């Protein structure tokens, strides 16, 4: 193995280098200008994101434990874009007095999780997959507890670490059964040795439950709302978009490549969990007052829609899931971007606080509306195309009933998204949030989100590229 073949791992190597660079930079940086470390990290990740799009060889390393292919690369690139947006959105927040001590830690931890996700997506062996998933989860728990003087934040951290430990346990238990019955942990070999043996099915169910924790699929969603509410907003947005997206990606790869034999089984599992996830996520979201909790439940229901792309096990399904995650990154980060901007400026996070926002901050209201419409799947923004393709993918395999449930759920979701729109545009308020001008980084990140929301749908080339890289069972 020559040194050149290591370039297959380009994404991971670059990110590790970036993490180290940020650490070293902190030592030598002028302590008075700590906040410019943020800028440094953003630029670093920006460069890595761009490099990620350069053509790269596909192949495998370490005897097939690490696999790189066009599909996996585009998944990593999508995650890079998302994390970059989160970085930019955190800029203002990190300038606050109480965070000045912890700037480089923040970036270090986030980059580590991204490394973990990249390894997870590139896994060709359950061991690498497991290491990746842990590396992607544990730093997040530290980040959830980032506001260490807030009880809720500490609570969120401990809740996240406990529930993810439990889910890892469940996952490992499932993997041990898979190992016990097949005698291997390599994806390709498990696939050939897998059958309809009941112990293997049990192993799969445990594995799926473990993943369901990460994606917060009902009935494994209970940790979501509390963690989302307690964490700092930036981390909430990270959890709801990036973590979820990465977990969906790897679940999809594993379902399609490792478990095609028991497709009938996982289709039933997904059918039930998808309906539950959409419906329960939506019904709970209606009652929420805190916007972070609101978006938490909305993101649970979004996971339900995403499962529609998995159920068919078809190429179109994989393409629509990857595409939808991209759209979802822009839309959800757009919505969170507005919440972050307002939270930074005023500390307000409730829907009632947004009453009359359009009168004072028209641009933020418009962006929020656009993002929410995209989440609800209203044309002409990208969310419409994303949902349409997900539904088409499920319909292609004849799951018309599931599609019907899903579209009816989008109506419920439209109801609560419109409640926010109503607060901003229609409701009157005695003391609306006063007019403020957000700084450049916030506006820049929101600008990218808006551009993404508008362009991703119309530019069919994006979908076509993704589709050509996708595969079915």
């Amino acid at each position, binding site marked *: 193995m020559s040194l050149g073949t290591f370039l297959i791992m380009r994404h991971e190597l670059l990110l590790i280098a970036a993490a180290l660079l940020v650490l070293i930079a902190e030592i030598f940086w002028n302590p008075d200008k700590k906040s410019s470390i943020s800028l440094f990290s953003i630029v670093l990740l920006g460069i890595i994101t761009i490099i990620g799009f350069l053509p790269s060889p596909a192949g495998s390393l370490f005897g097939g434990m690490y696999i790189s292919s066009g599909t996996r690369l585009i998944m990593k690139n999508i995650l890079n874009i998302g994390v970059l947006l989160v970085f930019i959105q955190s800029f203002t927040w990190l300038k606050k007095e109480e965070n000045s001590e912890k700037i480089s830690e923040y970036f270090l931890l986030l980059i580590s999780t991204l490394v973990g996700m990249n390894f997870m997506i590139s896994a060709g062996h359950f061991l690498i997959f497991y290491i990746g998933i842990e590396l992607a989860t544990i730093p997040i728990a530290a980040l959830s507890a980032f506001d260490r003087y807030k009880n809720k934040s500490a609570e969120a951290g401990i809740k996240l670490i406990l529930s993810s430990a439990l889910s890892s346990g469940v996952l490992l238990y499932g993997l041990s059964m898979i190992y016990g019955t097949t005698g291997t942990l390599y994806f390709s070999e498990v696939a050939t040795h897998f059958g309809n043996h009941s112990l293997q099915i049990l192993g799969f169910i445990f594995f799926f439950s473990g993943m369901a924790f990460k994606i917060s699929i009902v009935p494994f969603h209970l940790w979501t709302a509390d963690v989302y509410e307690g964490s700092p907003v930036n981390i909430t947005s990270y959890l709801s978009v990036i973590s979820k997206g990465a977990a969906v990606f790897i679940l999809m790869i594993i379902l399609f490549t490792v478990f095609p034999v028991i497709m009938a089984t996982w289709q039933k599992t997904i059918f039930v969990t998808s309906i539950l996830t959409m419906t329960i996520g939506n019904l709970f979201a209606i009652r929420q007052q805190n916007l972070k909790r609101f978006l938490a439940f909305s993101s649970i229901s979004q996971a339900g829609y995403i499962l529609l792309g998995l159920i068919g096990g078809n190429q*179109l399904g994989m*393409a629509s899931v990857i595409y939808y995650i991209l759209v979802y990154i822009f839309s959800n980060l757009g919505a969170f971007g507005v919440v972050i901007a307002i939270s930074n400026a005023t500390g307000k996070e409730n829907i009632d606080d947004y009453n009359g926002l359009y009168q004072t901050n028209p641009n933020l209201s418009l962006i929020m509306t656009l993002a929410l*419409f995209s989440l609800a799947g*209203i*044309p*002409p923004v990208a969310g*419409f195309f994303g949902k*349409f*393709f997900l*539904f*088409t993918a499920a*319909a*292609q395999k004849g799951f*018309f009933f599931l*599609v*019907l449930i899903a*579209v*009816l759920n*989008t*109506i419920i979701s*439209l*109801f609560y998204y*419109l409640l926010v*729109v*109503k607060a901003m*545009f*229609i409701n009157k308020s005695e003391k609306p949030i006063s007019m403020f001008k957000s700084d450049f980084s916030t506006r820049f990140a929101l600008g990218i989100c808006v551009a993404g929301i508008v362009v991703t749908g119309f530019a*069919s080339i994006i*979908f*076509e590229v993704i*589709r050509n890289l996708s595969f079915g069972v």
Partner: protein
Amino acid sequence: MDILSLFVVIPVLTITAILLLKDTRQVRLVSAFGMGLQLLMAASLVFLYLTARHAGNNDEMLFIKDYLWFKSLNIHYAVGVDGISVAMIMLTSLVVFAGIFASWEVEFLRKEFFISLILLASGVFGFFISIDLFTMFLFYELAVIPMYLLIGIWGTGPKEYSAMKLTLMLMGGSALLLVGLLGIYFNSSPDGNRLTFNILEISKVVIPLPDQRIFFPLTFVGFGVLGALFPFHTWSPDGHASAPTAVSMLHAGVLMKLGGYGAFRVAIFLMPEAAHELSWIFIILTSISIVYGAFGAIAQKDLKYINAYSSISHCGLVLFAVLMMNQTAMNGAIIQMISHGLMTALFFALIGMIYGRTHTRMIYEMGGLMKIVPFLSVCYVIAGLASLGLPGLSGFVAEMTIFVGAFQHPELFYRIVTILAVSSIVITAVYILRVIAILLLGPTTNEHFEHLPDAKWFEKISVVTLIGSVAAIGLAPFWLSTMIGTSLHPIIEKIIALNPF
């Protein structure tokens, strides 16, 4: 740039222009200019269309343009028109044009109001020019969603409730529709070729009957919600009553026609077998709509509610006629769509103008308006007479054609429902004449009203445009019915091939 896409591009450009304006006073001028241009375009489209037909072009759709959009799913941006869509485009541009002038005095957030209104219009135009189901659906939803803000912000009464109810019910309809469209799409190529969303191509294949039985009701009800099909009509009275004038005009005048048009262009045209098999269910429902809507209108005291219920009755008639599935009745259905669109827009415009003066819509609080605002009152009488089907105005032509067509069916069932539906004419006369008597005739009941001004110039433009069109159709319906008739041929042929009765 092809001529049809201009119908979407011009509204978008108008919106951009409005966005760039600094001075809010110019907003309405720009809107009027943009929509005036649109009206001219529509007129020239009618002209171009008729010329092309005279020149012997017998294609089903004219001016077809097709751009590949999503290659892997074979989604196109495809536009094309036949006589029916040309007529609908003409209707839309007339109503939008009149609507701009009817909302001349909107003060609150004027810029946003006109942007939402024109956005809605561009959705409607896009819907009528599309021949690809995907783009059609996209424009359909685009037309519905600005409604929420238009009613919620600028409406009156329980506007938030009505706006939410209307939006959710219409989106619920589009949810059913989406499933129906996907069902059509995955059956669009039985012999294993590429699947397609193109209406013309799908119409050449026969979708298997078991699938049709599932997807026809979904599609029909999906469109039917927008066409105020009983029992999914409940959004209509609340929505219309709370909406600002121009929005009521556009909504009752044009948007409800999307339902009728879609039901006939997509549901019946593409799935005629199931349509024929299941039509009796929907004929019963639409008959209920017709009669119930008319009775509902009698019981109301609020002018807008009266009109909303009358719209349910009239739009029910459209779906009723479409389901009769013969040349005459379908011809009548299209004329009824146009006629009702103009008439009801006229009604809502006048109600808005009267409300703007008296600040009440309750008929018993007003009286003797004929002496105070003669212009508006006379126009109201004309609108009323058109609505109850007086010969010489558009309503007569439409309803006459529909009932003749419906009665052509020899079976007893069709005869009975037709007789039931015909009874609505009498009921319509009751509520129209009652309103005219209470509202316009008799002594002036409220002395505060005695010095109200009559219509201003912009209101006159709005009203005269609509009355002129109503009278034009009433007096010279032949050009409209020829235009529609030739375009109906392919559809009728397809139906007759199935079940020559």
